[in-house]
Structure formats: C-alpha cells, structure tokens
C-alpha cells in the first residue's frame, strides 16, 4: 500500500525508533523539579523530572515517562537528549526554535543545536499534531518555572 510523502515525513524511522525505544526514560529521585503535562483532548501524558546544577543554571539531568502518540513520545525522547547539560537559557531558546520548526513559523535561530529534532518538521503539515510535539517541551518549561519560587 503506497504511503503519502507527508506521512513518511511525519513518521520518519528515527522518530518511530525514539517512540519505540525512548531515551532517558524513567524518573529521577527527589530532590528534583517535576511537572506533569497532558493534552486533555487526546489523552497524551508526559511527566518530566529535572535536576539542576548547584548554581541553578544548568539542566544536569532530565528524564521523562509518559504515554501517548508516537509524535509526543518521540519529541520527548529527542528533547531529553538535546537539552541535557544545557543552561536554562539555552533550553528556552531551543524550545522557541523547535516551536518554529513544528509550526512552520519562520526559521530557527540555531538549527544546528536542534540536531535531529529538525526531523519533526513533518508536523508542519499536520497542525492538529503540533500540541503533541510541544507537550514535553511545555512540561519542561513548567518544571523550570516551578523552580523559580
């Protein structure tokens, strides 16, 4: 059965591989930052656990658990690989770049930093899946915000 180009772009092998074998999967024991994200309309769920460096500036460790579609889980898995070890500012800049990529909203500032996350640009053709791709990123933002207080 022939597959459309859009579908092949959406579900590239790397993406399917991340969804089947998620990296950095699991929980980090406290003390750590934690946030739960979900898309109530479709039931996707992600929990992220995050440990910052002593000065509170860098993301030293990051893990996630969750259930949901291949896009939400692959995006989470790929994200953990890319933002682990980065500063909070770098992570925020990558989130904005990644949002641009999946929404087709301008070009990213630092494409190289995104690495294979660029592969999720196929989501552009499926606007209702943007929230799946962004779910883990929103959860990380929330976890970081919870650490501000």
């Amino acid at each position, binding site marked *: 059965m022939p*597959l*459309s180009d859009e*579908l092949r772009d959406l579900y590239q092998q790397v993406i399917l591989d991340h969804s089947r074998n998620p990296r950095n999967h699991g929980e980090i024991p406290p003390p750590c930052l934690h946030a739960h994200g979900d898309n109530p309309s479709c*039931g996707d769920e992600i929990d992220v656990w995050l440990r910052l460096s002593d000065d509170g500036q860098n993301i030293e460790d990051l893990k996630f658990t969750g259930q*949901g579609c*291949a*896009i939400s889980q692959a995006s989470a898995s790929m994200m953990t690989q890319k933002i682990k070890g980065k500063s909070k500012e770098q992570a925020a800049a990558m989130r904005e770049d990644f949002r641009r990529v999946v929404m087709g909203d301008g070009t990213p500032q630092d494409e190289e930093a995104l690495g294979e996350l660029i592969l999720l640009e196929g989501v552009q053709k499926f606007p209702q899946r943007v929230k799946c791709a962004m779910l883990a990123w929103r959860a990380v933002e929330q976890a970081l915000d919870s650490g501000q207080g």
Partner: protein
Amino acid sequence: MDWHRIRSDFPIFDQQVHGHPLVYLDSAASSQKPRAVIQALSHYYERDNANVHRALHELSVRATDAFEAARKKVAGFIGAATDDEIIFTRGTTEGINLVANTWGTQNLRPGDVILITGMEHHSNLVPWQLLAQRTGATLKHIPVLDDGTLDSAAIETLLNDQVKLFAFVHISNSLGTINPARELCAKARAVGAVTLLDGAQSAGHMPIDVRELGCDFFVFSGHKMCGPTGIGVLYGRMKLLETMPPWHGGGEMILSVSLEASTYKPPPHRFEAGTPDIAGVIGLGAAIDYLQAIGLENIQRHDHNLSNYAVQQMREVPGIRILGPDFGHRGALVAFHLDCAHPHDLVEFANSHGVAMRGGHHCTQPLMKRFKVPGTTRASFYFYNTLEEINRLVEVLHAARQFFT
C-alpha cells in the same frame, strides 16, 4: 435492498480524500446527510423562512405547520403516545441536562440514589454529578464486565428502592454494547425508579418504541441519524412532563407575564423557550421520512451484517484487541486497540489512505480506565457503508501494522 443506490443519495461520498475514495467510518460521531435532508433545509430557507408560532402571515403559517408536522413525525418515529411528549432540544446532551435541571432538581433529596452505568458518555454522567452536588443525592454506577456487558449481579443489588432515577445508554458509543433496555426499565419500574434512556446511538439504527421499551425519558440527537446538527429530541412521559417546572425562561414558553410573575404553557412548549432551530426541526423531519422509507428493520439488519463482518475480518489482524461484546449484542461499531500503534497515529495513518475513523477516549474516560487503555480507535458504520469499505479498513490496518512495528 439496493444499498449501493441508497449510498448515492449522499452527495458527500462523491469525493476523494488524500487521493483515495472517502471511506467514512465515523458515523457514531456524526452521520452523513442525504440529499433529501439538505434539500429540505434549503427549501425552508428559500421558500418558507419565518419565525414560528408568532405571526399570522403566510410564511409564518407555513413554517409553523412544517415545524409541528416534524414533531408529529418524531412522535411516530419513537412511538410516543402524543405529539406533546416531544420536546425539541439542541441534542442528547441538552435533553439530559433539561431532565437533570427540572425533574431532577424537583425530585431528588439527600439520601436518594441516581444510578447510571460504567459505560456512559460524559453527557450522561456529568449532568448527574452536578445534580448530585446540588441536591445531596448519591451517584452510583453499575460496573461493566470484561466482555463489555453490564454486571447483572450488581444490577440486582444496586437497583433498589433508594434509586430515584436510572439513566443508561441504549447502545454504547465506545463498546457497541446493546443494553437490554426493556428488561432494565421494567426492573427500574418495579422499584419505583424513573428511567432515562440515552438513545444517541440507537435512534436511526433500529426501530424504537418508547412505550414498548417502558422508559420515562428518551433522548437523542438528529445529527447521528442523517439529520442536521444542533437539533435533538427529549421524549418524556406526559405524566412526568406535566409536573416538571420550566428550565429556560423566555418567549414561547409562557401563557401570561406580568412584571412580578408568569404562568407557563403546558408541555412541550413549556420547555422550548425562545426561537427554536426551525430549519433543524424540519431537517430532522426529512431525515425521519428518509429513514422510514428505507425501513428501520432493514437498517438494523445491515448494521448487524457490517459489524459482524468487521469483527470477523479485524480479528485476523495480529496484535489487535477488540473491545465490547460478541456477535449479536453489538451495534454498528468496533472499538479496538493495536499493540503497535497509538490510536492517534493509527487514525492519522488511516486518514492518509482516505479512511476516516476516530481515536481517543470517545467521551468515556472512566471506561478507558476500566479497560486499562489510553484510548481506542473506533470504526463506526451506518447503512451507507459497504463490505468493500470494511475490506479497505482491514487492508489499512495490516499496512499500519507493518509501518509501525
């Protein structure tokens, strides 16, 4: 029956989706509309459009006649004793909320029980939660067994004389289960409970006779049975309707109004405040004419053939888990889970092949929890679907398995 000719009554099927013929398997969410219904809507707007019940001019008389003629059709369609037992609503959801806010508020006291089942659509759950909070009544439910049927042993203990209202779904939109409505209504009557039957998935799919079913209230939506969106029906037994206070106040529902107080019309107009969805009502009437010309028994038989064939074929797909009851107790839908693909990925994959299905919790989150699935994919059928379309679905499922594994 010439089902292929009947299918050609639906203009929407004359199109390709993503380069493939449209295979529409989401009728449980909303059905497609035959030309006769679409034409009834445009005829009304082009020839007869005016407000009802309020003026003496020609167009208003025509609109009012068509409106009230549709009420008569609905009464005949479900076997109501009189036309006045038919209240037009926006749909199933509004009908249930109307009962909860009128009969419910008037009759429930702390200690009373509202009984539902574990397979209710959120629209037959949340209004009762709200009512329980308001009145101090307790909400209980009958559990669902692994095979997707109701736990009959639990019914015997739960359906006791504390139960003031028993509200349950006739055909489950998530499992396909056809509940034994007549038997359940009889049991409820024996303990003095009032019954509300959610007919969203049964109306238009099988002959309905509310008096034979023995329910006190019956609710359904026009859009799931070839009618327009935005129109639905609440049937209530006149003995109950007469005693119920109004819900919405406004024009159309009053006898006389002073600045201090008002008196209200008898049912059904007491419950139809404001300008109704006149076109919707007329379109619903046209849908009923259309369905009755095909014959509800014929539709029921075709539904049955489609879902039996689908279950047989889909069972052969490796890694599939089909929810819901076996042959003979299942309405026109199959909900399932494929081990290799999340419902949204599967629905996306199918969509790219022109096959429209729905994935998710289907507004029955407690049921998803009960069956320990994050959601399911649902293929739902109506009389315009064909066995070839089910073959196409099965091909797509096999291809999806290869793709996602």
